[in-house]
C-alpha cells in the first residue's frame, strides 16, 4: 500500500502538450502510472505518447469515466482555473507542479477543494512517488533513474525541499533502506497538504513503519508535526532534518503577521519542539539513513 497514490488510480495530465507535461507523462507512463487522458484547451484530438487529449476535463471524464487524480503542468497564471475545473469534474486529488502560483489563487483552490471534498499537493512540488506503485509529477525525472534510485520499503518521506527529497531517498537506498511513499509537499508558504497532513496519512498506512520529515525554516509545519507527536496522534518513529540553520531567519513581512505567528518558524524553535516531542533530529542529511537504520533494527527485535 501507499499514500495518495495507488496502482489502480486513473490519472489525468493537465497541460499535457507542453514541454513539461509531455516529458513527465512519459515518466509516469514508463513507471506504470495509469495516465489515461490529457487536457489542453484547443488541442482536442491530439495524442501525446498515445494518451488522448481533450479540451476540457469534463470531456475526458465523459469518455473515460471517473478520474481519480490530476497532475497539473499548466503555466502558473492559469493553474487556478485548471485545478478548479478538475475539482468541478469530480477529481479528488490534484498534484500542482508549477512554481510561482499567486497565493490568492492558491487560497481560491483551497476553498474549492473544501467545497468539492477534494485535496491537493503543491504548488511548487516535484510530486509523489511510491516505488513499484507509481509516480505523480516528476520525482526522479526519468524511469531508469527512478528504478535505480528508489526501492520499495517501509520509510515514508515528507519533504519541503525537492532536491533533498530525491537525495535522501537515494542515500537511504544506498544503505539498503526502501521507501513506502515519498511526498514533496511543495516549496510555497501555502500548500494543500503540509507535513502534518502527510504524517497523519503515513500513520494510517500499514506499509510505513517510520517517517522522515525534511523541514525548512519558516511557517509552522514542523511545529505542527511535533504537536501531533506529543499529542499521541502519531505513534510511528519520526526522524527529521530542518534546513536553513545558517540562513537568515524567515523575514517577517508585517506586524500583524508577527502578532499572530510569534516565534514559530525559527530553526531552533522547530528543532526543539520536534526533539521535545520525541523525534530524532539530525544536523546533516547524510546522518538520516544511519538513524533510520538504528530505529528500524530496534523495531525488528
Amino acid at each position, binding site marked *: 500500500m501507499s499514500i495518495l497514490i495507488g496502482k489502480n488510480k486513473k490519472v489525468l495530465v493537465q497541460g499535457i502538450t507542453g514541454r513539461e507535461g509531455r516529458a513527465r507523462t512519459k515518466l509516469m507512463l514508463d513507471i506504470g502510472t495509469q495516465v489515461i487522458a490529457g487536457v489542453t484547451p484547443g488541442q482536442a484530438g491530439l495524442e501525446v505518447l498515445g494518451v488522448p487529449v481533450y479540451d476540457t476535463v469534463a470531456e475526458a471524464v465523459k469518455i473515460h469515466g471517473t478520474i481519480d487524480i490530476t497532475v497539473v503542468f499548466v503555466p502558473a497564471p492559469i493553474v487556478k482555473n485548471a485545478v478548479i475545473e478538475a475539482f468541478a469534474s469530480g477529481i479528488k486529488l490534484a498534484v500542482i507542479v508549477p512554481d510561482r502560483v499567486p497565493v490568492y489563487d492558491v*487560497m481560491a483552490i483551497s476553498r474549492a477543494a473544501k467545497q468539492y471534498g477534494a485535496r491537493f499537493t503543491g504548488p511548487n512540488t516535484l510530486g509523489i512517488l511510491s516505488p513499484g506503485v507509481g509516480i505523480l509529477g516528476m520525482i*526522479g525525472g526519468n524511469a531508469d533513474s527512478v528504478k535505480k534510485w528508489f526501492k520499495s520499503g517501509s520509510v515514508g518521506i515528507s519533504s519541503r525541499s525537492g532536491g533533498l527529497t530525491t537525495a535522501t531517498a537515494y542515500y537511504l537506498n544506498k544503505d539498503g533502506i526502501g521507501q513506502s511513499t515519498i511526498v514533496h509537499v511543495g*516549496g510555497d508558504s501555502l500548500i494543500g497538504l503540509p507535513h502534518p497532513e502527510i504524517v497523519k496519512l503515513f500513520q494510517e498506512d500499514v506499509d510505513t513503519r517510520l517517517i522522515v520529515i525534511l523541514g525548512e525554516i519558516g511557517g509552522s509545519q514542523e511545529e505542527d508535526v511535533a504537536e501531533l507527536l506529543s499529542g499521541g496522534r502519531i505513534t510511528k518513529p519520526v526522524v527529521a532534518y530542518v534546513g536553513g540553520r545558517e540562513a537568515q531567519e524567515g523575514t517577517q513581512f508585517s506586524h500583524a503577521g508577527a502578532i499572530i505567528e510569534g516565534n514559530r518558524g525559527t530553526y531552533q524553535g522547530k528543532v526543539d519542539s520536534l526533539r521535545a516531542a520525541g523525534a530524532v533530529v539530525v544536523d546533516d542529511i547524510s546522518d538520516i539513513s544511519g538513524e533510520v537504520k538504528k530505529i528500524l533494527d530496534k523495531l525488528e527485535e
Partner: protein
Amino acid sequence: MSKLFEYQGKNLLAEGGFKIPRGIIIKSVDDAENVFKEIGTGVLKAQVFTTGRAALGLVKFPMTLEELQTYISEMLSQSIKGYKIETLLFEEKLDIKQEYFAGITLVSGKSSPTLVFSSRGGSGIEEIVSKYPKSVFFLDINPDKIPLPFELIPLLKKTGISGKVLNLLSDSLISLVKTAIKTEAKSLEINPLVLTDKGKIIAADCHITVDDYAVFRHPEFGIEIARELGHPPTELEKIAYAVEKDDYRGTFYFIQLEDNFKKGAGVLGFHGAGGGGSMMSMDALQKFGYKVANFCDTSGNPPASKIYRAAKIILSQKNIDGYFGSGSGVASQEQFYSAMGIVKALRELNPDIPVVFRLGGNGEERAIRILEDYTKDLKPTVRCYGKDTSVSECASEMNQLIAQGNLKNNTETLKVNNRNLISDYSFKTVTNGTVGFNYALCLSCTSKVCISECQSGILEEKNGVPVLNISKEDVAKGKCTECLACEVECFAHGNGGGRIDLPIPGLDKEGSV
C-alpha cells in the same frame, strides 16, 4: 518582497472609498512653494519602506515655507538601507482623537487572509497587543464572501469601541479588506488608523506588501523586481530578472551578495540548483573560507537557454576567483541541459578561473562528459562531478584549483565560439533567440549531430542540410525548447555550422553590463 510606498497604498485605499489625508507628492525642493500654498502647515514624510520613520528624522512638521524647504533638501539627500530617498509626501495635519490599528495579513499555511483590528494603535503595536489582548480581534476572511457590517460590529464592540464610530469603523474595515484582496496583498496595514476630532476615520499611514507571484497582474504598481532582495536592485539583478520574468520554464533566482571585491579575495560566482541544495552548497564553500558573490538558483527543470543566461550573468561579475555550482546532488531534472548551457557560456567568455560543478542526478554521466570534454581547449580548468561525490569534496577541489593557479596554460584557444551568426537559414525561438545555420559548413558535415541531438526533434535533413520539420511560427511559440544542441553538440562533433544567439538585454557580447 514587492512593497508599495505609503502614498501608493493610500491612493489604492482612496480608490476603494477610504478617506485619506489631503496630500501632495514632492520630488524636489522646487515643489515646496506650491505645496505649502495648497496644504499649509502639515506633515512631511519620506517615502521609504522602513517603519519607525519618526525616530530616523524622516517625519517632520514644518511651520514655515523655509522650514519645509530645509526638510525637503535634507530628506532628499539621504539614503535608507541603500535606497536613495526620492519621493516625499506632504500632508495636512490631522486632529487626532483616537488611534487604532487595522490590517490584513496572510499567515503562512493558512488558506484565508486574517483581518486584525486593535482599538489601540500607534507605534509599538506588537507590545500594545501583548499588553492589551482584549483590545484586539482577529477574523478569517473568505475573499468570496466579504464580511458585512453586522458581522464586524460585535467584534469591534468587544475591543471597547462604542457609539457612532462602530458604523464608520466597520465600513472602513470592509473597504480595507476589499483593497487588500484587489491588490493581492500579503499584508496591508494602516497604523495608525485615526478618528479625528470632527469624527472622521482616516488612514494616516499605509503599508502594503504585494504577493511577488501576483505582481505580473499589477503593472500599475510599477514594481521593478518582484523579489526579496534586501537592497535596491543592482543592474545585474535587473538583467537577471528580465530573463526570468516571462519565462515560466523552471526557476532562475539571482541575488548579488558581495560587491566591490578584489581578485584573490576568495569570492566565487555561485550557481546553485534548488533552495535546500543551494543552502547546503554555500555552507560547504564557507567551510573553506570562501564567500559567494551571488546567490543563484536554477531549478525546476529550466531549459538550457536559461542556464546559459544565468551562467553569463554570474560570470559577468568582475574579480570572482572561481565559478562553483551544486544542488542537492540527486536532481530530477536532466542535468545535461545544465551542462549545455554552462558550456555555451564558457566557450563564449573563456574566463581564466577554475570551474567546479556538481551536476548529480539525471543524465549526470552525460552532463559530466559534456562539461569536461567540450571545454578542454578553453583557459579554465573545468571539473564536473555526480551524485556520489559530496559537495564538501567539490568545495575542496575548488580550493585546490584556486591554490595551484591555472596549469592549463593554453594561451591560444582555437575553437572558442566566434559569435557572428552566418545564417543561410534561420528561425526565432521563444525567448527571442535566433538559430542559424551556415550551410557551407553544414554541407560538408557528416555527423548532422544537430538533427540527432535536437531534444525537440524539430530538424530534418534536406539536400544535405538541416531544415525545420515544423513551421517557424510553431518554433517561435516554444516548440524549439532551446536545448542548445544545434550549437554545442555541433561545435563538439559537427562542423561548427550551427549557432544559437540568445540575447540578454543589458549584457553585451563579452558579457559585461
